[in-house]
């Protein structure tokens, strides 16, 4: 008992509840999932959790074309949506920044898409892109632009684009809000100095506004890259990975392998590959962020 009464034990005693919670919620599941990725764990046969197979799951993954397609598709999905969201969000933020009256109202309205559950956004866009009763096809019909319905969610090329459209609709405002915050914090004087120094509006934007916004852009990129990398719900609702796996992303594939095929060991191996990829993205953007922030201390 004297061990617990020693003054040096006090900090550890006080930290124990927090450590226990962290262990129960994070460390144990992490350890179990990491362990299971080295086993032939199958949900239907619990005993397989102890059949250690070494790196077999990872070795199979390397040769699994479905996995690499999903992996590549996810990367493309992240790259395209993030960049489009950045461009659209930046444009939106610049426009709202020009507004002098009702900016707060606009800002609130801008956040509406973020307030919906992604599942509902998925259902909503599934309906909008429905080939028979969807809004898009009906509008195109009535305008006389098409005579045949376009199978938005069934066509192998259009389906990923439709999902991207939904994702961009939902999350462009994340960029817009963060970049608007950056624009509002932008000091006026360097911009005026640049104008006097001979810059036109586009040059002011390129040489002054954009460098100043870079930290905000990288923060938004970091947050959103993690968000998009785990895209699941919207895809599950809109196409469920179809047609013929053309919209299969990492997480839909993982859910299929883990829960439908019960190959939890394999699914966890996939999970670790995708988490490592996410970490790489985050580290990359975070490095950029630190570099971009370094000189902003000089703003006075």
């Amino acid at each position: 008992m004297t061990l617990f009464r020693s003054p040096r034990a006090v900090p550890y005693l006080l930290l124990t509840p927090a450590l226990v919670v962290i262990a129960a919620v994070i460390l144990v599941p992490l350890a179990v999932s990491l362990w299971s990725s080295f086993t032939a764990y199958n949900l239907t046969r619990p005993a397989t959790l102890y059949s250690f197979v070494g790196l077999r799951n990872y070795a199979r993954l390397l040769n699994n074309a479905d996995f690499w397609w999903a992996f590549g598709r996810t990367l493309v999905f992240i790259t395209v949506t993030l960049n489009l969201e950045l461009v659209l969000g930046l444009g939106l933020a610049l426009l709202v920044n020009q507004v002098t009256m009702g900016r707060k109202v606009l800002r609130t309205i801008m956040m509406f898409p973020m307030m919906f559950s992604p599942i509902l956004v998925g259902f909503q866009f599934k309906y909008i892109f429905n080939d028979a009763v969807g809004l898009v096809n009906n509008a195109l019909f009535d305008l006389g632009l098409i005579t045949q319905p376009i199978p938005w969610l069934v066509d192998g090329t259009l389906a990923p684009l439709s999902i991207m459209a939904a994702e961009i609709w939902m999350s462009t405002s994340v960029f817009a809000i963060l970049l608007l915050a950056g624009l509002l914090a932008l000091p006026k004087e360097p911009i005026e100095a640049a104008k006097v120094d001979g810059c036109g509006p586009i040059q002011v934007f390129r040489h002054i506004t954009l460098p100043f916004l870079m930290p905000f852009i990288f923060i938004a990129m970091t947050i959103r890259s993690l968000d998009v990398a785990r895209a699941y719900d919207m895809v599950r609702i809109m196409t469920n990975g179809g047609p013929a796996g053309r919209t299969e992303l990492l997480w839909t594939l993982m859910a299929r392998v883990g829960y439908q095929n019960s190959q939890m060991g394999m699914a966890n191996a996939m999970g670790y590959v995708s988490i490592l990829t996410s970490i790489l993205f985050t580290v990359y953007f975070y490095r950029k962020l630190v570099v971009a922030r370094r000189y902003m201390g000089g703003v006075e």
Partner: protein
Amino acid sequence: MAEIKLTKVVKRYGALGVVHGIDLSIAHNEFVVLVGPSGCGKSTTLRMIAGLEDISDGEIRIGNRVVNGLPPRDRNVSMVFQNYALYPHMNVRENLGFGLGIAKVPAPEIERRVNQAAEILGLQPYMDRLPANLSGGQRQRVAMGRAIVRDPDVFLFDEPLSNLDAKLRGQMRVEIKKLHQRVKTTVVYVTHDQVEAMTLADRIVIMRDGHIEQVGTPAEVFERPVNVFVAGFIGSPPMNLIDAVVTTEGLRPAARLADGVVVPLPAGVSVSEGQRITLGLRPDDITPQGHGMPGTGETLRLEREVALAEPLGTETILFTRLGDKEIQAKMLNPRVVTPGETLPFVVDLARLHVFDAADGRSLKA
């Protein structure tokens, strides 16, 4: 050649007028200082010249061009801002060369002009530093360097020294003056500090509430202020302003103060019996006997009790009472004065200023 001509220039924000139709001509290579209290419209006027504010009415010419509709980049002006306004993501060299790069000046020429400016301002050791790693004075120099490399027609300074500490401000003031002697250009300089105005200006423009009160050389505005406002604004310590009533009982008009003292008015002042006036008396012109400049003419002797003495080394400022006011007097070659001591003061009557109490304008011819 770049003279600047403002004709009936007006600035309004909605219904609120900030500058009310000012006229001003600035000669080529002249150093003009706009001075006045905060909110007098001096910075707004400067920003209209720079093109950072629209001109609501009237006309501004730089050289022979009307610049009303021109954006800042087409006016060939450069500006030094109060907060330096350096580009935080560029080092000193890039900050200096930025404007030239935008103007598509060839790289070797940029290099040459940046180095020249750096040499003039002593910036060579800091060329690769970011603004965040510079002191206030160094940032100020970079801001000035950025202005001079472009070799503009007009330099605009917007309270450039107000963020520096007192000692540095004095140094930079001298540097700006030297810079103007070296790089001859038209300069418009805005400040609220009348010492800066007096020391730097070829001509001072004193503004109040969007109007120009007086334009003149430092000596003119000091010696012959046109009204009470200018008189009180220019000079440190400020001019003593004492209410009085004109009496013509004696041989010539005099001013009767609230405490009964009668002060003969200088010749050439047009007043009438009973007129309410404000007497202006600079601390330099009321001095203890034997501790002032030799008087130029007629004087008045007054015995006064000193309430407080502020020794400044070469002179001491004495606080005493005259009329219904506490006034300041200057003591040259000072000795120690204890509060409560009564001293014989000498007032230089020829240097008295007389203003109409109602509208404040000078009554001196």
